[in-house]
């Protein structure tokens, strides 16, 4: 039982995973679409959280990596390549680009890094709209016969679960500790021998590769991409908001955020009046979270949990009192 005590999320996590993987035999297509969308958001949010949450490097340019993954898959699929090849190639290209972007921008700290990433994201979008081989601003289509919802569903859910497992594993080994130390005090971390630039580059590469695979699957599922959808600033924005609202730097935070946002999106898309201004809610959420609980839903949960009256063993009470 030691394993369970160390990982209290293991049992509900496994049950949840089993339910998601069994869903295609039980649920309808509409529900599965919503679940696919949620898994897509979980990948984006959890991968972003690796750099933005654990290491505290808030990037507003992640749509660039979604876009690179999506464009690689579409362009290579049109050249006759199988998704088994295009998805890893997209991940590699995205990771390579993340290093290219990270080398200069990781020299910046805090908000300066964040604003530089807005610049990078915008530059990528502007350039993708202006290039010929990307189909310009009108976008590109997948070749016919590449659509298969069921396998795409399994791939996306599998990717989401793999991402969460990877993040959980990284969180509790030395790499996760290094990320955490960078967030708390980058100079202190450096003084203790953490090569902060290298750790940040690695976290950036891992998360951008994961995001690129999700982008590739997105392209296969929707069969059509354009700079206006895939490089959209709003996508970067959603990616950032999910972990922030859920709780940055935690394992469950991005999942909560992704569930909340995919639910919101379904509700909002169903009502035509809200469709154009759904980010009103996003902005309001962001203001409320930043003013009242910068640690998001998870922070709120901890606050409520610690207020609950309950019996404590004397040793724990003593330790808490001392801490």
């Amino acid at each position, binding site marked *: 039982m030691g394993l369970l005590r160390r990982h209290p999320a293991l049992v509900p996590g496994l049950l949840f995973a089993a339910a998601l993987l069994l869903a295609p035999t039980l649920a309808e297509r509409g529900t599965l679409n919503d679940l696919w969308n949620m898994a897509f958001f979980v990948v984006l949010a959890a991968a972003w959280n690796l750099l933005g949450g654990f290491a*505290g490097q808030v990037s507003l340019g992640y749509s660039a990596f979604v876009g690179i993954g999506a464009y690689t898959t579409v362009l290579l699929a049109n050249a006759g390549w199988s998704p088994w090849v295009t998805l890893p190639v997209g991940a590699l290209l995205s990771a390579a680009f993340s290093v290219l972007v990270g080398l200069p921008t990781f020299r910046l700290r805090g908000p300066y890094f964040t604003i530089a990433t807005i610049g990078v994201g915008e530059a990528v979008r*502007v350039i993708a709209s202006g290039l010929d081989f990307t189909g310009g601003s009108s976008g590109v289509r997948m070749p016919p016969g590449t659509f298969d919802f069921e396998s795409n569903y399994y791939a996306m859910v599998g990717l989401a679960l793999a991402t969460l497992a990877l993040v959980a594993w990284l969180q509790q080994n030395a790499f996760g500790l290094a990320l955490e130390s960078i967030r708390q005090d980058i100079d202190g971390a450096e003084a203790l021998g953490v090569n902060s630039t290298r750790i940040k580059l690695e976290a950036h590469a891992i998360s951008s590769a994961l995001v690129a695979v999700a982008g590739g699957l997105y392209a296969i599922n929707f069969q059509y991409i354009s700079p206006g959808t895939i490089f959209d600033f709003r996508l970067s924005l959603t990616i950032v908001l999910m972990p922030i609202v859920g709780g940055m730097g935690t394992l469950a935070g991005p999942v909560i955020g992704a569930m909340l946002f995919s639910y919101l999106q379904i509700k909002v898309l169903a009502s035509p009046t809200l469709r154009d201004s759904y*980010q009103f809610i996003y902005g309001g959420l962001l203001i409320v979270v930043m*003013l009242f609980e910068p640690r998001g839903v998870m922070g709120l949960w901890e606050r409520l949990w610690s207020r609950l009256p309950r019996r404590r063993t004397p040793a724990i009470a003593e330790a808490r009192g001392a801490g």
Partner: protein
Amino acid sequence: MQKFVVVALNSLLTAGLYATMSYGLAVIYGVMRIINLAHAGLMMLAAYATWALNDRFALDPFVSMVVVAPAFFLIGMALYATVIRFLPRSSTGPSMQSLLLLFGVWLVLQNLAYAIWGGDTQSILTPYTMESVRFLGGRFGVPQILVFVVSILSLVGLTLVLRRTFLGKAIRAVTQNRDAAMLSGVNAGQIAAVAFGIGTAFAAMAGSMLSTLYAFTPDFGRSFLLKAFCIIVLGGMESFTGVAVGALVLAFVENFASAYTAIPVSFQDAISFTLLVVVLVAAPGGLPGLWRMLDRKVVAR
């Protein structure tokens, strides 16, 4: 040579506008150490306000600025009193929390505009929109020239306020050293509210002027926010002269790059974003920092 003069004059005209849109950001950064991401939303909102006044009452965009700028001064003060005031203060530099909070404000403004005016592209057409003036062998649009004149007037006005009035001196004092200013009896909270109002009013003026030059949607303003940020970084974040120099540098680089290199016009925005990243990385102190660094090297020899 003639092409050079025309491009240089065009850059100068652009620089006036760029300076106006950056001053608001610089005042707020100076007093509060906050990067006002909502700047873009405020510029967009002012563009719509100008458009609405033009549409309803056939008011000229440059005349309507007389109404729009003071109105946005009050909006800025209100924004400070309701939201910004509650941010925990950071003495070292802008906090992530303030950045994300203002980002939220920007989103709310943007979607307020979507809810009120919808997502269609709007533009303002005045009798002089298509007019141009011949000068030194080049053609210069009348709106561009008017924007330049108004920019210079507003910048002179701001400089006078900052140099000559008690309020201006207090703003500069808080910018230089908040604690020392408070010890000398300056109400820093009040000054911050006024500074946020001034910053917002300048965003509004920039927005009104942009609306005479470009078509806009509620998504408008992001690229101009990045440009403004690039300019204040170039100018060294706190210096008001630095902002003017930064605006000149960015305008010249953009115009000359698209006039003399093979970079297509559609990539022009990418130039400023790249410049922003390069400046942030290579010269985080901006031009003043670079100047001091070179100076020190010369002295060392």
